[in-house]
């Protein structure tokens, strides 16, 4: 089965510090993969390279049969807007906008008219248990509510891949579970591939399989090659 998104031998360093030394991973359509490893192991860097946020020093990144790392900044931005979704640990909402506008942001950036974008965004509030919070600003939301708003934003444009980096890191366990549950459910409904970076095993348990990033390379715990796993 062909991979939706994959990295081949990605090498990335920050100054003198090498973060990734030949990382290879392939994720199939609709898969939910947990990328685990100790902090500082480079898992976030791998996610950033896969999402086209960072350009690898060596190696290739492929998405839907196309080279990702050779695209221009503008092309990668558009890709993030239309095909990818993001849920990061914190600080991702625009404080000046309301929750609804934050969710609608990818649509607005893509040129959707304001009324239509807000309507589509509003539909997500009910699904994620955020009724009535549409007009609040991010500073007025609790941590769990803010993360669900971020999730809605990540899913509003029906992405092919959802990138989640420690999405529950700042949340208490109940809120965290709610977020993970909603995330996996929504991803399954829309057939979204999910790449989930986490060090928390209970969060990783929401994924279909896990890979470990160690010493800048991607391995699996069972010694099998970390290629596209079996379908769920």
């Amino acid at each position, binding site marked *: 089965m062909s991979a939706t998104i994959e990295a081949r031998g990605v090498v990335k360093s*920050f*100054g003198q510090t090498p973060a990734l030394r030949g990382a290879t991973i392939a994720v199939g359509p609709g898969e939910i993969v947990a990328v685990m490893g100790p902090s500082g192991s480079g898992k976030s860097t791998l996610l*950033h390279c896969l999402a086209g*946020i*960072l350009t690898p020093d060596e190696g290739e990144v492929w998405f839907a049969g196309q080279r990702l790392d050779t695209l221009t*900044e*503008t092309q990668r*931005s*558009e*890709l*993030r*807007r*239309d095909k*990818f979704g*993001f849920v*990061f640990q914190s*600080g*991702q*909402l*625009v*404080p*000046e*906008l309301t929750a609804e*506008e934050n969710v609608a*942001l*990818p649509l*607005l*950036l*893509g040129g959707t008219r*304001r009324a239509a974008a807000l309507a589509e965004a509003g539909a997500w509030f009910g699904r994620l248990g955020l009724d009535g919070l549409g007009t609040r*600003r991010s*500073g007025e939301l609790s941590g769990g509510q803010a993360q669900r708003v971020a999730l809605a*934003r990540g899913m509003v444009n029906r992405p092919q891949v959802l990138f989640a980096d420690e999405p529950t890191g700042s949340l208490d366990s109940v809120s965290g579970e709610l977020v993970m549950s909603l995330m996996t459910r929504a991803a399954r409904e829309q057939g979204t591939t999910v790449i989930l970076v986490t060090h928390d095993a209970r969060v990783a348990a929401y994924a279909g399989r896990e890979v470990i990033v160690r010493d800048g390379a991607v391995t699996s715990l069972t010694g099998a090659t970390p290629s596209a796993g079996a379908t769920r």
Partner: protein
Amino acid sequence: MIRLGLRLAVSGGREAVVRLVIVAAAVGIGVGLLLTVIAAVNAVGVQNDRYAWLDTGTPAASARVQGVVGIVVGRHGRAASGGATTATSRDPLWLLFTTDAFDGQTIYRADAAATGPDSPVPPGIPRDPGPGQYYISPALSSLLRSAPADELADRYPGHQAGLIGQAGLPSPDSLVIVVGRSAAVMSHLPGAAKVTSLNSTPPSGCGNSCQIRGGLTPKGIDFILSVVGLALLLPVLIFIGTATRLSAARREQRFAAMRLVGATPRQVSLIAAVESAVAAVVGVAIGFGLFFLLRIPLAAIPFTGQRFFPAELSLSLPDILVVAVGVPLAAAVAARLALRRVNISPLGVTRRVTPAPLRAWRVLPLLAGLAVLGFVVVHGKPASPAGQVLAFVGGFALIMIGLVIAGPWLTMAGARVLVRRASRPGALIAARRLADDPRAAFRAVSGLVLALFIFTVAATLLATQNTEPPFVADGAGANNILVDQFSNITEVSSGHQVAVGSAPPPSAAVLARLRQISGVQGMVEVRADPGLTITNPQLQVQGFPAAVVSCAQLAGVPGLGRCPAGAAAAKVPASLIDVEGNLADFTWPAADVPAQRLDSLPLASLDVATNGSQPAIEQARTILENAYPTGTGSPPPPKTVGEYNAVGNGADNAYQQLADVVILTSLAVAGCTLAVSVAGGLADRKRPFSLLRLTGARLGMLRRVIVLESAVPLLAVAAVAIGIGFATSAMYATTEMHLSLVAPGAAYFVLTAAGIVLALGIIAATFPLLRRITGPETARSE
């Protein structure tokens, strides 16, 4: 996208609104100043235009115009080659211009006689005045009514036929009179000329070395504009820059979040530009409001030495459009350029790398500016006025910009000193922050440093200017000697100088009337004797044309010098007013001229010593003018020695006022920059400061940190700026004014110290904000 930008700028929560307000206020002040400068330029142009007709008949106005020099804005420089004039009339107009004085003010007098119905008519009056009539400016008219007749009104024959309208007056305070004469009388007045059209080339279009009766040459306008532009605009730009940096980190973070979600760099650029433009549009509105509020008070300030008519301080439609459209456009462009320097990645500010250390090259622009001025000192001024403006203004600008560039490096040096000498935690924290980001620390005080530099230069130059020894020194009341000078010193083809012109001796009646004036202390009739020369080494001129005086008369006017013992007559320079030095100190050489011959010689000048009171001077002046009506001999009407000296000083008062306004404004702007910068820095460091307080640091320590962070850069760079200011003034004084620098008065030092104390006060004013911001609530985990 644009809508999104608007949304973010306007209704983005309290922090965004505060920033919008401050940026708009800063832009508003800048736009207000800009509009004022533009309106002033327009008004100066209009005012200058109205001096044009007064220059009819001056050699340069009627000769080919040398070319327009200097900054041409608005109505300047209409002149094409050939000298613009009004339409030619069939019937010529007899015209003679003189400048007169009363109580230190200049009166422009035109004696005119029309030869026919089609004669040119001076602007502002319905028709040429007939014999026995005069048209008069409103200011002069009220002066005539208030002053005693024998001091003023008696000079002008005839009665008032009407007032001169605004079209003929440069300023509402202008003293102008057009006296009607008969053609027959005019034809006998030496210096009167028949003109078929009136000059309409303003003095600024008149070339570099023409004689003008009033108004500003291009050099004068350029100088004023350059000084005002530099001295005001740079602090305002710094203020705007500081305001736009408020909440910079938060806004960059927000842009990073948008980039993550898929905003392209162009979209981010566009949104930033829109936000910037919105603030600028609000600022432009504020600026226009400020301008219209300040127009009337501003018109009362005599920038050029003369007030403006309030309506002239106006903006043309192109001016308004350029500002209203150009400023937001410039703001949008500036925002895009600012983004170019920062790389907003989807991950925001990921790895924080310490910025490159400041290198010593930063002092180079400053040294370059000093070098430019130094070059001028060593090699002399450039020949053309354009070159001079370039050299001085260019050097000045380089120095000011050099101060701004070198500032962070000097701050760094100051920080290092502080680190070595700091023992208390507050000083260490301040030193660390200064070393970490000297640019930001200096930016807060850069406006004040520039204002200090300008203040130093202005104060020292004005002090030097004011002590410039007058042509004839003030010893023994020489300032109050009224001189009616009939002989002019001119150069003949052989290179010699000769005295040309004389007047017949006064009648006994005139002498008697002069003696009757209370306050007149003595009179000297300086007799013209062509061929006489005086070679007194003290006069620094050899072969200077001489005249003769009776020692008996000279004894009564000690301010003009002494006779040798036992002499009956002495040789004196034919033009005493051209002598440098204190006349009273001179002992003139004896002249071998018998008394009878002396009494028969015509006059080179008639000098009346007064006690300096206005009635005495003006009455004497009136009598002299009536005795020697305008046109007899050379143009200069009777003037006191002090008034001759004050011709140069008149401009100084205007410049002093201009300098005061400029310095005060730039100080106010700089103070705002400091306040905004300190408050903004506090807001940015809310969390670290409140955590410090929680862990036991006292509020006093935090206060010390804040004070030191601004005080160290201020003092370090201020010391340098003041030193450079003195150096700059010294060089300018040497080359342009040919004087050595004089230390400014105590007022300068007091005001400088007061300014620094004020700066500390502004910093202290943010302490309540510190207390509120670092309260325990802020340290809550967010």
